[in-house]
């Protein structure tokens, strides 16, 4: 009796597994059928390494399906910090990169690790701080604001993850000859969204890209924009393909198509339209060469 029950259970489990496998099988056969009727080859795979801001803002959810449909490509989007994305490109673990740290990008391009380097779009960085604004910073001069923050030792929350935003922040500190350290300087090592949340809880200042700020503003009621608009605050995105001559497994055919897709005027219009409905303003602006 008992053994019988075990068999039933075992049988049920097996069925579950089989159904799990079976499902993919039917999908495969369905795909195979499709192949027979329409001579459409299986989509090729391409790895896009990009920054969290393009994914968290929702921009890629619009662009990637467009590209996939047009070119019969399956895009695997890996959203990481710009530093990691560039490293993936250098190692040949990705096919195409969409990032925003021009100085670091230049090194990768100059070393011959990336080719077909094209400017795509921009938005801007902003300095966000607590509503009480204890350091009393304002205006559009980010360098003066950073100096004031360091002098007053107001809590500053840094990404600390080698992302484009982090590189930008470090660039400003270096330009002012300040080595940020101490209790007031908090390094989260996390993405932009989480860092903003930490800043909101700790009532700190934080440098962020405008897209992520707009998308998250609703959860951050202790923060406000304190510095914006300066020319030092421009946030430029570039797309580039990984050099296929350095790594033999790189899918350069689709990567090239993706670069051309991103600077295509039709795509550029989509980029500029994106977010207007939800936030009343564009999150990214067209900016090709």
């Amino acid at each position: 009796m008992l053994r019988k029950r075990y068999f039933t259970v075992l049988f049920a489990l097996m069925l579950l597994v089989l159904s799990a496998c079976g499902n993919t099988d039917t999908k495969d056969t369905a795909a195979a059928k499709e192949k027979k009727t329409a001579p459409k080859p299986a989509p090729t795979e391409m790895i896009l390494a990009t920054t969290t801001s393009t994914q968290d803002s929702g921009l890629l959810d619009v662009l990637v399906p467009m590209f996939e449909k047009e070119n019969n490509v399956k895009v695997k989007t890996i959203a990481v910090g710009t530093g990691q994305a560039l490293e993936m490109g250098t190692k040949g673990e990705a096919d195409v990169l969409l990032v925003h740290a021009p100085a670091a990008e230049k090194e990768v391009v100059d070393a011959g690790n990336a080719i077909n380097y094209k400017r795509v779009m921009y938005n801007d960085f902003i300095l966000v701080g607590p509503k009480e604004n204890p350091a009393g910073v304002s205006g559009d001069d980010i360098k003066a604001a950073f100096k004031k923050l360091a002098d007053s030792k107001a809590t500053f929350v840094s990404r600390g993850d080698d992302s484009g935003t982090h590189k930008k922040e470090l660039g400003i500190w270096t330009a002012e000859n300040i080595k940020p350290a101490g209790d007031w300087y908090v390094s989260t090592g996390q993405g932009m969204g989480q860092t903003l949340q930490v800043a909101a809880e700790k009532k700190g200042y934080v440098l962020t890209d405008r897209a992520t700020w707009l998308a998250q503003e609703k959860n951050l009621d202790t923060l406000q924009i304190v510095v914006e608009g300066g020319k030092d605050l421009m946030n430029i995105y570039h797309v580039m393909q990984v050099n296929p001559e350095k790594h033999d497994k790189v899918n350069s055919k689709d990567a090239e198509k993706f670069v051309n897709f991103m600077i295509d005027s039709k795509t550029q219009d989509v980029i500029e339209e994106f977010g207007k409905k939800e936030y009343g303003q564009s999150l990214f602006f067209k900016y090709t060469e």
Partner: protein
Amino acid sequence: MELLIDGIKKAIDMILSGDREVFAITWLTLKVCLISILISTFIGLPLGIFLGLTRFKGRRILLLFINIGMGLPPVVAGLWITMLLWRSGPLGDLTLLYSPTAIVMAQILVSLPIVTSLTCTAFQQISEKMLLQIKALGATRMQTLIILIKQLKIAILAAIMAGFGRVIAEVGAAMMVGGNILGDTRILTTTIVMEVSKGNFDIALALSFILLSLALLITAALTFLQQRKRIS
């Protein structure tokens, strides 16, 4: 508090409205977890029984490594699998990185030691007298094994449940080796991380309830199986 109630409401909404994306993510989570734990069971159970019942040279060292494996942080497992599957890595030609298979590999790596070690512990506790008695009654080796498995049903299922708990809760490795790709490797835990970083706490909370329900359902089934009274 309000957020909590909203979350529950949203979760019920998501399930009832048949949101295709949520359904696909949940289904993938279930599939990946069940396949991982089944493979872990099929390998870990025999291995655990073997380690529990036999004595050989090097057994303790082997057990030590398996016990360390019980505490293997998923991100470490994720990192190893990632490096293994890199295009430039030893298994790069298989192009398995950022696929559900990669997630299954990482989950087996973290759950197999748990299943093995707990099974081994249970079998090691069988008293010599009982083994002798079974032998005296003339049982073949196969029969002995079946009797022992029946005797230790509770412990074996506990081992499987512990392994399952590890697998369904796992997020670090799944993020690393899966990449959280929509429609491909996005599972419930990685979606929750992503929604939190997007600031969509309501969706994250709703998904967490779906994940908990899933865990509850499976664990309840296993517990029921474990605690059922013997009739025969």
